[in-house]
């Protein structure tokens, strides 16, 4: 009964306090106002508080500057989103009301922000490099239509009717001229070549910074704002995370895209593959062919032993790391022995030890081991085994700790139960405990495999002066020993290096997803 009452009262509430348009409007503006103030305070905080603090320590830094500009950059958009979020309540119940509310708020906010920009010479009204003349493109060149009295152009002696053909010796059209001008700093000299009455002349104009404060520039901005607001109003809520994700991943995806495009083309400009005449095109398989042909710009090699070396290091490392870590983790988790605590803290310290500092001592150790009969050929200097062993050693502290943590989470009773059921200790470990920590083994295995596959410093150091090299070492050789470096070729080798990892993930994917979608359900 009490429940029914509760529902009844809440229903009455929504009916009664249906906010008026005016109240919604005020709420939307309030939200927008709050976000503006918050971001302004943030910008102020970064530039006026954090910045000087860093400056005290005489640290050269641009982070606070970037943060300040970022806050100011997103400020209007956050304001539009805040206002539109109020309108979203009505999107599907009263579309016109939603749009009206969102648009009126957006226009008002845009006006306010623009007024602010106007007064503070900021944003679209920020001063720009200018020569204070109006131009138009003609067949002969850039025609000067007007020259502002007392402006930079007039000072330089330019007259209306002059036709500009070049800056210094570089011929320009209007777009190029504007680009060049936009990149110039205050007072930079621009030597202009122009035709006056058919006669070639040249004058040097000095760039000034001018904000022209023309209100017309606001219109395209307003259009963008309205479209943006409409999108926010109609955007399905559950899309938001994906949009954020794609936005954040975008730079990364562009990078991958370039690598793939580059490997199939002679040369690229940005993301666009170009042929010899700077036109779109110029696709080729030569970057890939030369990998298998074993000759890149005169550097002779055979890719298959290199690939096998990479594979051997990665597989050996995965196998040994998994085996040793899981057994050591088990012992540390389940057994009490003298020195256990010391061992635990010591491995943690080892993990924090930078590998680089140990390169030389390990070099000596490997040299000596190489002199030992029999095992020297397996794990000495200049052997795959030696390299893998060093890599394993660096990976083990992390692995052991990780595995110990996983074993710690398995209840003792599970293992006791297995022992009582008749298992030996090893069998209980192998058949009962290891399956419980499959996600951990998989994660560590992937770490180890990728670590071994991409290893550079250790293979490079401990295989000096031999033909023995893995893919990363080879890639570096390629960059070192070819001149000029063909980056499209480098990209192809890089992508080639990724292929086994791709294959691995394609096959492991089903299994990975399975584990994280409840494959270990019921372990509690």
């Amino acid at each position, binding site marked *: 009964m009490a429940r029914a009452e509760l529902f009844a009262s809440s229903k009455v509430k929504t009916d009664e306090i249906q906010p008026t348009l005016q109240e919604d409007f005020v709420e939307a503006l309030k939200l927008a106002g709050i976000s503006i103030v918050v971001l302004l305070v943030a910008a102020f905080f970064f530039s006026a508080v954090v910045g000087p603090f860093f400056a005290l320590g005489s640290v050269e830094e641009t982070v606070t500057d970037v943060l300040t500009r970022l806050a100011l950059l997103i400020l209007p958009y956050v304001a539009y989103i805040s206002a539109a979020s109020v309108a979203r309540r009505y999107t599907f119940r009263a579309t016109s009301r939603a749009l009206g509310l969102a648009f009126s708020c957006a226009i008002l906010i845009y006006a306010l922000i623009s007024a602010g920009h106007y007064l503070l010479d900021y944003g679209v009204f920020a001063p720009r490099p200018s020569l204070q003349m109006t131009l138009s493109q003609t067949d002969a060149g850039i025609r000067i239509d007007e020259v502002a009295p007392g402006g930079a152009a007039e000072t330089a002696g330019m007259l209306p009717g002059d036709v500009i053909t070049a800056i210094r010796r570089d011929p320009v059209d209007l777009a190029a001229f504007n680009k060049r001008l936009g990149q110039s700093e205050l007072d930079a000299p621009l030597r202009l070549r122009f035709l006056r009455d058919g006669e070639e002349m040249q004058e040097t104009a000095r760039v000034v910074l001018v904000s022209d404060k023309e209100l017309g520039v606001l219109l395209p901005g307003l259009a963008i704002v309205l479209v943006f607001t409409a999108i926010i109003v109609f955007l399905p809520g559950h899309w938001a995370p994906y949009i954020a994700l794609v936005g954040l991943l975008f730079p990364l995806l562009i990078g991958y895209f370039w690598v793939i495009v580059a490997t199939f083309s002679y040369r690229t400009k940005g993301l666009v593959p170009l042929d010899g005449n700077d036109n779109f095109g110029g696709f080729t398989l030569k970057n890939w062919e030369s990998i298998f042909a074993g000759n890149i710009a005169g550097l002779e090699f055979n890719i298959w032993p290199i690939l096998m070396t990479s594979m051997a290091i990665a597989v050996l490392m995965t196998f040994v790391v998994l085996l040793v870590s899981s057994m050591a983790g088990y012992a540390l988790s389940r057994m009490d022995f003298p020195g256990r605590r010391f061992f635990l803290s010591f491995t943690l310290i080892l993990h924090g030890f930078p590998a680089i500092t140990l390169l030389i001592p390990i070099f000596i150790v490997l040299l000596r081991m190489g002199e030992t009969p029999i095992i020297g050929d397996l794990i000495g200097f200049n052997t795959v085994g030696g390299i893998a062993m060093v890599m394993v050693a660096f990976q083990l502290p992390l692995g052991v700790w990780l595995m110990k943590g996983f074993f710690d989470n398995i*209840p003792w*009773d*599970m293992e*006791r*139960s*297995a*022992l*009582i*059921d*008749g*298992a*030996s200790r090893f*069998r209980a470990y192998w058949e*009962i405990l290891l*399956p*419980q920590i*499959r996600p951990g083994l998989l994660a560590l295995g992937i770490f180890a495999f990728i670590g071994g596959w991409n290893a550079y410093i250790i293979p490079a150091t401990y295989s000096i002066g031999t033909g023995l090299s893995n893919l990363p070492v080879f890639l570096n050789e390629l960059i070192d020993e070819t001149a000029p470096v063909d980056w499209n070729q480098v990209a192809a080798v890089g992508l080639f290096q990724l292929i086994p990892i791709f294959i691995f993930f394609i096959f492991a994917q089903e299994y990975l997803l399975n584990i994280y979608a409840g494959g*270990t*359900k*019921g*372990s509690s």
Partner: protein
Amino acid sequence: MEIRIDNLTKKFGEVVGVEDLTLHIDDGEFVAFLGPSGCGKTTTLLTLAGIYKPTEGLIRFGERIVNQVQPKDRNIGMVFQSYALYPHMTVFQNIAYPLKLKKTPKNLQNESVRQVAGVMGIGDLLDRRPGQLSGGQQQRVALGRALVKEPDVLLFDEPLSNLDARLRLTMRGEIKHLQKNLGITSIYVTHDQVEAMTMADRIAVMSGGRLQAFDTPEELYDRPKTQFVAGFVGNPPMNFIDVNVSQSDGAYTAKTGSIRMTVPAARGAPAAEHAGAVVMGLRPEDIAIASEGEVAGEIFVVEPLGREDLIDVRVGEHSFILLANTESRHRAGERVALQFDMSQVQFFDPQSERSLLWRQ
């Protein structure tokens, strides 16, 4: 299988798990270990299972000394409080695991598992994984896994404490029934005295790592040898008050403050012999509220239990817990008289906490 534990001590470094435990369990007997949590019940059980090695003492299964025998060679079955099922195996694989370890042929495994599953009523769940079962079903799987290899000894560590009350009642009956049918020597650890009283042939009451008593439920209830046992067995617990017992003209009287109670000679005599105060114990069911009575008091709290009311009556500074019919509708603050059935009264030495009536 007969189990004989002699002077068993298990220590974890400085921590004493169980100390100087001597206990002889007959073949086919159902023994409960009863005691508050932390008293060493699990430790004892795991030592019997071979998971812990005894610090001192001897454990014999039949004639064989098993102190150094590995768990897998003891032929025991154990049911854990957490069930400890293997989450990556199906119910079938869980139950079959002990047989697989024994290298039983596949077709025999299959047969035994299906038979045990049938007995446990989980025959239709064999393809599921433990994560897909309810608590009661998991319990049955755990029991099935313990039974399937036909163990000589069955160990239970609080197997029912994760179940709801109704299920606990059913499983209690089922476990007892199974044990009697199969005749497997069983040890059942619990902190719930009702479970111990209803299921066990004999109960070993433990406290602080030591054995307090080892006897049938009736003996423990009627003739508790220590104050701890008297207080731990029975629900609600026995009332204890300090009294002086004296004799005049062949009549024995227990006195404290204004309270005076007549004690039958058989029980009064040993108490009167003890110099100074003794602890008197009276079970709630031996106290009744009456219109007329030896002692007058005031009702402090009434706790309805459904079938009965649990009533706390204060007499001076003493408090008596008793049970009364709900229909009498007593209320807190009411003044009442108490009548005592002194034929079941117990007396204990306040120093040693041993019974003055029943000597070991």
